[in-house]
């Protein structure tokens, strides 16, 4: 629980292209700006006039590359909305740079704001009146309910469950550390062997890294939406990819089963970054090389955010198509009816279920793009709120990982348990922030359950 740390958030909803604003408020707002902004004027950031716009580049703290060109304004307290120092960064490069800018700000030790938090500060700092405060009450009140709903979602959401798992892992490590500290000599079996702590920390670090880098939602965050094209052999998957990319990249032949490697391309659709993947045709086959291709298709489907299933209008729905539908299962998907150029008046076949296209002539591509956009919004793959939650998760995981790395370093240089415990506790509380928990009672419960205490 903090009341005056520095917070940041998108001040405009994450939508199509255009301009978006990242707002930062709190004592470290200007520090954060200094770390990521290279102004195009000679003026030092510290010397910027208050409430004045300056042009410059947002620089990635990771690789020093330019994220976006932006207009920024520093507004010094108290003449600001929150009565704290406020920085506003106006980006115009679409949703991706906006998100990267926010991430860059958060990497400076700034916390992602809770819904209603700017307004809350404005009220607590005497900036707005009681009537306006009523609306914040609503926001925070709904957040309480949302929190409850999220808790239910968390039970189902795999990422939350995995984070919870890591937190449990850390609780167990802490319990082991604390039982050694608070109950020395009491349970001989609790005594830690050499390297045991390091092993446990490595396991936890590994889990977090896997989660951060894994094919789960974290990857969407960095690499965009993953769209997979599937369909039986020779249905026109590679042609569709090529048409979408408007360039020949995949090898297109008339022999079924040509595409044996997965081909991956990036494109931008309605301001949303999309990774589009062409898989090998899925069908039962004895050919060994092709088997690998089918296996890869299955795998890539597993991590897909959206599947485009292609059917051949000239052959109608076949058994293999059914198999592919089963493979796709619950993954959000669109069904495409390809090769309409070989049929008359095929466009009229469009209905709720099938989108008629011709990968060869490009017919139906507008409709397809619109539907992709719609399903992405509809299924909330990258709706504003879920994305923000993901950034929150990722920030929590990232910070937890740093703390675990610190704990490992401490252990390597021979620091004692009580010092190492500080870092582990910190890692725990970074993850605990997600579910809002406190450490002591949980650790004690584990200790009394697992170890024979009572000298």
């Amino acid at each position, binding site marked *: *629980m*903090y*009341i*005056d*740390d520095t917070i940041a958030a998108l001040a405009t909803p994450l939508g199509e292209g255009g301009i978006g604003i990242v707002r930062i408020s709190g004592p470290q707002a200007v520090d954060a700006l200094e770390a990521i902004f290279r102004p195009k004027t000679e003026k030092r950031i510290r010397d910027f006039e208050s409430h004045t716009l300056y042009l410059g580049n947002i620089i990635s703290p990771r690789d020093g590359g330019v994220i976006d060109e932006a207009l920024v304004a520093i507004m010094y307290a108290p003449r600001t909305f929150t009565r704290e120092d406020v920085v506003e960064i106006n980006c115009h490069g679409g949703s991706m740079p906006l998100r990267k800018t926010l991430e860059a700000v958060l990497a400076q030790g700034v916390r992602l704001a809770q819904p209603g938090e700017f307004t*809350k500060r404005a*009220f*607590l700092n005497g900036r707005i009146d*009681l009537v306006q*405060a009523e609306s*914040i*009450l609503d926001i*925070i*009140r709904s*957040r*309480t309910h949302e*929190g409850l709903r999220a808790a239910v979602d968390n039970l189902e959401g795999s990422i939350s469950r995995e984070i919870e798992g890591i937190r449990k892992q850390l609780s167990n490590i802490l319990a082991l550390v*604390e039982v*050694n*500290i*608070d*109950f*020395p*000599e*009491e349970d*001989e*079996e609790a005594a830690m062997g050499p390297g045991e702590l390091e092993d446990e920390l490595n396991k936890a670090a590994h889990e977090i890294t896997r989660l951060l880098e894994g094919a789960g939602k974290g990857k969407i965050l960095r690499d965009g939406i993953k769209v997979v094209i599937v369909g039986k052999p020779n249905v026109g998957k590679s042609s569709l990819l090529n048409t979408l990319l408007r360039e020949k990249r995949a090898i297109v032949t008339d022999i079924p089963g040509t595409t044996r490697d997965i081909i991956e391309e990036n494109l931008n659709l309605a301001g949303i970054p999309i990774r589009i993947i062409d898989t090998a045709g899925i069908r039962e086959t004895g050919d060994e090389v092709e088997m690998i291709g089918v296996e890869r298709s299955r795998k890539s489907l597993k991590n897909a955010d959206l599947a485009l299933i292609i059917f051949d209008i000239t052959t109608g729905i076949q058994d293999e198509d059914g198999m592919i539908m089963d493979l796709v299962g619950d993954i959000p998907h669109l069904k495409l009816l390809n090769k309409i150029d070989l049929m008359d008046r095929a466009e009229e076949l469009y209905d709720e279920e099938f989108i008629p296209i011709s990968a060869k002539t490009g017919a139906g591509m507008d409709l397809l793009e619109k539907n992709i956009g719609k399903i992405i919004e509809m299924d909330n793959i990258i709706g504003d709120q879920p994305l923000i939650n993901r950034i929150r998760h990722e920030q929590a995981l990232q910070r937890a990982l740093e703390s675990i790395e610190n704990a490992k370093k401490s252990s390597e*240089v*021979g*620091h*004692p*348990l*009580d*010092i190492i415990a*500080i870092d582990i506790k910190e890692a725990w509380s970074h993850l605990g922030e997600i579910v*809002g928990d*406190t450490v*002591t*009672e949980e*650790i*004690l419960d584990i200790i*009394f359950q697992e170890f*024979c*205490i*009572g*000298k």
Partner: protein
Amino acid sequence: MTFSAGKYDVIVIGAGHAGSEAALASSRLGCRTLCLTISMDAIALMPCNPAVGGPGKSHLVREVDALGGEIALNADKTFIQMRMINTGKGPAVRALRCQSDKRLYQYEMSGVLQREKNLHMKQDLVEEIIIKNGQVKGVITLAGAVYWSPTVILAGGTYLRGRIIMGDLNYSSGPAGYFPANKLSDNLRSHGFELVRFNTSTPARIDGDTVDYSSLTEQVGDEEEYYFSYMSHGQKRPRLPCWLTYTNTKTHEIILENLDKSPLARGEYSAKAPRYCPSIEDKVVRFTNKESHQVFLEPEGWDTKEIYVQGMSTSLPLDIQLEMLRSIKGLGKVEIMRPGYAIEYDCIQPKQLELNLGVRGVEGLYSAGQMNGTSGYEEAAAQGILAGINAAMYVKGRAPVTFSRSEAYIGVLVDDLVTKGTEEPYRILTSRAEYRLLLRQDNADLRLTEKGRKIGLVDDQRYEKFIERKNQIEELTEILEDSVINPGDEHGEKLLEELSSSPLKKSMSIGEILKRPELDSSHIERFLPGSEKYPRDVQEQVWIEFKYEGYIKKQIKQVENFKKLENRKIPPGIEFQGIRGMRMEAREKLQESKPMSVGQASRIPGVSPADINMLLIYLEQRRRETGGNEDEGG
């Protein structure tokens, strides 16, 4: 028939570890104090382990000492062995523990109490507290004496409706065969206080002459001389060893076969027992895969054959106790002198207290020690001194004294009790302290002596000694910061080589060099000839601050954030039930605990960060509605 028996500034009920400190504190602060005890022979009794200290506990002992309390000095005068434990686990959790001569401990403490000039010790049993219009007026005793006083401190230990359980035998009793206090509970209830019932057990005391020591592992104390109090340095005491043995499968069989003879194991008593101090029955039942448990034999003193059998607390019948003890190596022919037993007792649900240990809703009433649901002599002493101080502050019209979680274990202990309450006898643990690297036992004096001086409990002698130590620490710190060794420096390079430490690449202060993993405080004298004049504890203290500087700074920063929430005070009399938009559960929890700050509110289980936001907004609204006159304190 009652009679008026006198008028005092402060009355302390009980003369155990809480009562002793409370009575000493208030009388030393100039209050005419009466301390009533069930028996003059039960003063500072150790009815369970004859030991003081351990992780968290030694921290409390040294804090009480820094404030001018007695427990550290008394333990230093009466130990039979002293050990520094957790030495390899870090500066924050290093802890001193001693085995005490139980009788000598009582004798010495009793002497201190009797010699205190404002303190009057009397043997009597308090049966009623007189409260009129929300103000304490005095107490009425079994003998009919009415003692008048504007302040009363409850320090009744485990005596309230005490009941001893041993097998199917159970009878009304205080600990160790002393009288129980049977009427005070009802009287407290009639005043509207909520009581809870706890349970704790103790092992048998055996005849030391019937133990075969030849087959046991001897445990001696540390050679190096350690003391709880910096005021005790230089005293020497003779040592006695302890002994280690183990239970075995035979012992466990005997216990399991006779479990039905333990009404506690049968679940017939609902009083909560501490999880950290289970009976041997519990251990055997719960950890079936363990074939043996450690048993420590601890002598109870020089002038007694009695030995405390640590690890074997039990409420089994006497014959089974004997059978199970005799199955243990070295105890084949053992004789029991005092049987083990479980004791049940009433105590106050501590959520009814304030951070100064005042009982909410009654002016002048304070409560301390096991009475508040804690266990342990150290926890009792810490609360005792705080209650004694605050009774005196009240009498003198001075501001109440409280301790923050960020300045002392006393603060952690009291805040935990008051804010969260407790479901079992509460024991302090270092893991309960968020900022434990700052709250070390080695710097308790640096943290609290000034505060104790302002309160008025730190006398000139203690204060001068403290100032001397503090100056030495500052001086040595400065020298180590300023003394720079340059690469190529002959003496420095040679020394580093000798200590298997890599040569310098750039100029470094000795303080920086001492952070290296292969170096520690014992090397200060090597690098800085002449520093032998600083005592070991000063060198150690200075080295810790250098070595863990980064982590210490990190915790200081955490404390700064913590304080922001603590400083947001909640004005008294807030109706938490009426906070719109807050979840019902949170409102109820807040109403029950009545937190005094937003920080305290945030620690109440069941109150979420979103609830705290609602609270912050409510407080701001209220502040504006009341014209902003109330001090928000933020």
